[in-house]
């Protein structure tokens, strides 16, 4: 389904991914945890070649691409296997909510306009934005924009949806609405790879959790294994730090 072999990537001679091997099965929900700068975003972007790996093999669905010999045509077919939900939403700024969702259907799926519209309306209903069709992204809250981003990704009916910290640009009170939409689609059996710092969400939604640090996958396992009995010291430290930060900010909020 997804298969990565020895993915390496450097920026300015600085290695950021140091040989990532990974298999993800159909319908699996995998979350990636790890400190900032550990290469999570880069790994996700290598999956759809927004970043071209220096080395290694990327396979999504039936499309396998050898990084070094990747042609434009191969990259395009690889990209059409996946969809991405971005940290900063990246909605098409000049298109309405409805058009944002329709765009992929029309351009890459070759839907007729009326068909694309019908399909998109259903998806917007599903993410709770049935009443916002003609709004522009700039007229929506962050949470609403991100839900459009999710509908746009769902519309493509991809083999996998890649989420890069989908809630980390949101005001705290808007995080919940986005996470609950993601949870709902996770239950539909869509394959998902999610980079997140929302620990309780990761616990709840994942079939498997990866912990990355320094450009490698340090540890992986079920949420139970990773959160309750991490084997690696680095994982333990990271989880401790996160939960401490969480309780501190929680206490601060109570105090205010």
């Amino acid at each position, binding site marked *: 389904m997804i298969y990565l072999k020895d993915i390496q990537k450097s920026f300015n001679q600085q290695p950021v991914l140091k040989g990532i091997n990974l298999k993800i099965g159909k319908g699996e929900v995998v979350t990636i945890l790890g400190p900032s700068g550990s290469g999570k975003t880069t790994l996700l972007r290598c999956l*759809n070649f*927004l970043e071209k790996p220096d080395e290694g093999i990327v396979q999504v669905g039936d499309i396998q691409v050898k990084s070094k010999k990747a042609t*434009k045509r191969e990259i*395009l077919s690889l*990209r*059409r296997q*996946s*969809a*991405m939900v*971005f940290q*900063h939403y*990246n*909605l*098409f*700024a*000049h*298109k309405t909510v409805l058009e944002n969702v329709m*765009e*992929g259907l029309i*351009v*890459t799926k070759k839907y007729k306009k009326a068909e694309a519209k019908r399909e998109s309306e259903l998806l917007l209903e599903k993410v709770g934005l049935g009443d916002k069709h*003609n*709004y*522009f*992204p*700039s*007229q929506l809250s962050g949470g609403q924009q991100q839900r459009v981003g999710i509908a*746009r*990704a769902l519309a*493509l009916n991809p083999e996998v949806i890649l989420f890069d910290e989908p809630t980390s640009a949101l005001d705290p009170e808007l995080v919940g609405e986005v996470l609950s939409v993601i949870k709902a689609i996770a239950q539909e059996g869509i394959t998902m790879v999610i980079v997140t710092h929302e620990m309780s969400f990761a616990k709840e939604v994942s079939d498997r959790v990866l912990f990355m640090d320094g450009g490698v996958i340090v540890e992986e396992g079920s949420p139970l294994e990773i959160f309750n009995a991490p084997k690696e010291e680095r994982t333990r430290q990271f989880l401790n730090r996160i939960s401490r930060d969480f309780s501190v900010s929680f206490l601060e909020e109570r105090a205010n």
Partner: protein
Amino acid sequence: MTIDILFIWTAFKEIIKALPITLILTILPLLAGFIIGLAVALIRIYKVKFLCRVANGYVSFFRGTPIIMHIMLIYFGFPLLIDQISTKFDLGIQSNSIPIILFVLTALSLSAGAYLSEIFRSGIISVSNGQMEAAYSVGMNSFQAMTRIVLPQAIAQSIPNFTNIFIGFLHTSSIAFIVSQKEMTGAANIVASTNLKFLESFIAAGLIYWGLTIIAEGLSFLIEKKATAYNRGGVQ
């Protein structure tokens, strides 16, 4: 010397007859320049090998020299070139049978292309990278991402810049009168010298240019407001 206010109106009516030529000398070069400018901007942004150097040289030269120079160079240079090519290949074309306005249009188009390419370039660069990436992530190829996502935003944001270029070229078209094109400034000159009423004639011409500029600014404002409505935020 006294000023003959009534003659301003007489001159106005005479000069405005040359408006079509002025508009032709403004709009055609801008249309051609739009295509040249877009192509040059894309070549420079994508750093297309070899062509990129040509494009850099072209923009540097045409922005680095006065437009009147381009008209002169082409007006005097092209006939030589055409006649030589024509005798060499026995084409039977004579440069003096080519209407002068074509030389002027060529020169102005090349200038417009250079100026507009910089506007396209900054417009395209100002669209955030995330837009292109989102387009790729939904499976678009580079051409689709550029034409459907990036360019519409780049062009909408650049409307005030396009308007400045339009106004600049509207005024610049007046220098075509040095190679005897009867556009509005040329017409004003004729009206002035035949009636020996210079001030009145040029006041009339000035008023027409000013009026056209105000109309262009007004239209631009309306178009920009509509084209960038997506960017203004706030709930509907």
